């Protein structure tokens, strides 16, 4: 056995370092880094698949090395996980924009209606400028300071349930492979000429457009009806939430965890009911992006109006801030 032991030692000695392939460092904090020389044909995605077991994590490598692509011969570091949870430093932190649309049309535009051409250009802009469109679940993992996001992450949401979502926005979202969230107010899903029906809503949900709540009737929670008693108001608020949750759950067989407040308006009572009903968070329409320390029940969303030009659109894509660090 003696020669075998020697060979064994030599073998491991030989294999312990293969610097032309990779090199690993581990600290007490269990951060692992692999130094890699990119081989011909390798991409961010293939490297992510090889070293991180997930081809969708190319952004981890891209962000760490501050590159948008790799070429053969490049020397790069592959971190086993992103270094900074929210890109927080003394200089600033990451913020995530949540875009809000309502309706779409071929050519007609107004504040609440975006044309097909404009939507296509906006989505293309995201692609061409290194933005990663993420889901609400990913956003909330970030808000809970649990998982990091690509540096330029953005969320797409659509409110109400108009037909244009299915005929115009959905094919474009599919083309770019973007996830999105559709907040439906369930009374609107009646299959009217202008509105979605439940078959379409289910198809959207299966196709990557996550369907979530927008109440039952789209009542403004901060507007008291004529002669409305407190008891009646409380009962209506509860009904708006529980009924829409029940209907979506029944129609789509899924849990509803997120709500977009009608008109973006909310108050403590509404939030209390959301918490009681297991909602993970909810959105206003206050313009601005979201840092990880935002209140999950009053998250910002930026409405994209039909008359926005590209400059207006870009202004809503703020992915970092230092505001809370300033004196």
């Amino acid at each position, binding site marked *: 056995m003696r*020669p*075998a032991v020697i*060979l064994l030692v030599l*073998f*491991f000695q*030989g*294999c*312990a*370092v*293969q*610097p*032309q392939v*990779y*090199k*690993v*460092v*581990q600290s*007490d904090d*269990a*951060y*692992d*880094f*692999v*130094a890699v*020389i990119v081989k011909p044909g390798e991409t961010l995605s293939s490297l992510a698949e090889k070293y991180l*077991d997930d081809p969708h994590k190319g952004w981890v490598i891209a962000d760490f090395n501050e590159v948008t692509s790799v070429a053969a011969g490049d*020397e790069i*570091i592959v971190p086993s996980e992103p*270094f900074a*949870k929210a890109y927080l430093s*003394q*200089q600033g932190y990451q913020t995530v924009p949540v875009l809000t649309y309502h*309706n779409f049309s071929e050519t007609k535009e*107004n*504040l*609440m*209606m975006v044309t097909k051409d404009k939507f296509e250009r906006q989505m293309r802009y995201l692609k061409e400028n290194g933005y990663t469109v993420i889901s609400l679940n990913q956003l909330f993992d970030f808000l809970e300071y649990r998982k990091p996001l690509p540096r330029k992450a953005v969320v797409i949401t659509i409110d109400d349930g108009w037909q244009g979502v299915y005929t115009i926005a959905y094919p474009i979202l599919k083309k770019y492979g973007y996830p999105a969230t559709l907040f439906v107010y369930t009374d609107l899903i009646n299959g*009217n000429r*202008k509105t979605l029906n439940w078959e379409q809503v289910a198809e959207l949900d299966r196709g990557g457009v996550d369907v979530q709540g927008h109440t039952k009737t789209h009542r403004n*929670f901060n507007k*008291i009806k004529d*002669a*409305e*008693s*407190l008891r009646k*108001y*409380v009962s209506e608020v*509860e009904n708006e939430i529980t009924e829409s949750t029940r209907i979506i759950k029944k129609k789509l067989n899924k849990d509803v965890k997120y709500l977009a407040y009608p*008109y973006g308006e909310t*108050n*403590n*009572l509404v*939030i*209390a009911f959301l918490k009681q009903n297991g909602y993970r968070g909810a959105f206003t329409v206050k*313009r601005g992006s979201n840092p990880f*320390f935002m*209140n999950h*029940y009053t998250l910002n969303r930026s*409405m994209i*109006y039909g008359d926005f030009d590209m400059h207006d659109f870009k202004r809503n894509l703020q992915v970092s801030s230092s505001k809370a660090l300033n004196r």
Partner: protein
Amino acid sequence: MIVLSPGKGSKAESPCGFKPLAADHCCLILMFFAFFFFAGCTVQQHSLDADTDTFRNLPAKYQEKALDYESRGMLREAMQSWLIVQSFYPDDIETKDRIERLEKKSQAKADVHFQAGVNFYQKGLFADASREFLLTLAYEQDHEPALDYLKKSFFKPIFSTYVVQHGDTLKDIAEKVFHDPDKDFLIIAFNDIDSSMALTPGTTLQIPLLGDDFPWKEKSVEVMTRNNAVQLDLHRKKRKVPTTASPGTKPGETAETGSEKKNDEWSDLVKYRKAKEFLEHEEYLKSLQMLLSVDINFRDVRELIASTEVYLQQEADAHYRKGISFFLAEDLDQAIGEWQEVLRLSPNHLAAQKDLRNARRLQEKMKKY
């Protein structure tokens, strides 16, 4: 303590991974290892003693990065870069010391900021507190207490609790927490109880905190109803019924349907917010134009219009004064440009109208000569 640990903890497993084999397979083992040994050695020959030769750029790049981060006070980022550098120079004492120093310094900074944050928090200075907690996390990203405080600084409490005492009824508790025994239904709504149940002492009840901005106000229903009726009347007189269908209008619906009212409400809200955005960007004219298309009774539109007009007037006056300066400096083109801007912002600015006329006349005369 930094350990160079090939393969360990990495998703990319080292090709050295093996399972022990039985002794009677000794020959096979010898052949197997001999093969891999020699195959491995051919690769190893030129690289084992010279990692940095293989990675020509990375060590210097991360050394540079580390120094840059250090100079900007980004200690955690600097430490990470030094760790990468260290993997290429594992025996370099200076790098090792540097990392240890940075680690201590970073921890000390985190402690200082955390303590400052707690002090601010206890004084109710939440903006200052959250800044300090963010800095704590910047130095030590998994500082759980800082994260907890940070969230508390931004999250308003939604519930309070009440522990049931001997003899308490729901009406008593509602009286204590809401100053109104008839609000007992609010307690029922958020606790697993009903009005007929006797309360068990020691039970903790969840009490919703309605907050100052809660829209339903005591004894205001009657007054609000009257006001709403007047406002609705004004609103109807002011608004024209749209001739084309807008989003939300179903075929056959009239201006009085819920959907139409929803659109008016949305439209006012959207325009109102847009006007405020213009105001924030000091685009006063656009803001005023937007505000004028909103129901005058909507929120503080009336006050906003008044203040926007004041801003516009101030802006117009500033351009007017600039025009005078250019005129005195005999720069007629610039003066005319400034006064034109005055009239765009404030079409009834009499002085600008007069001076612009004179300047143009003068310009014509000068052209003739």
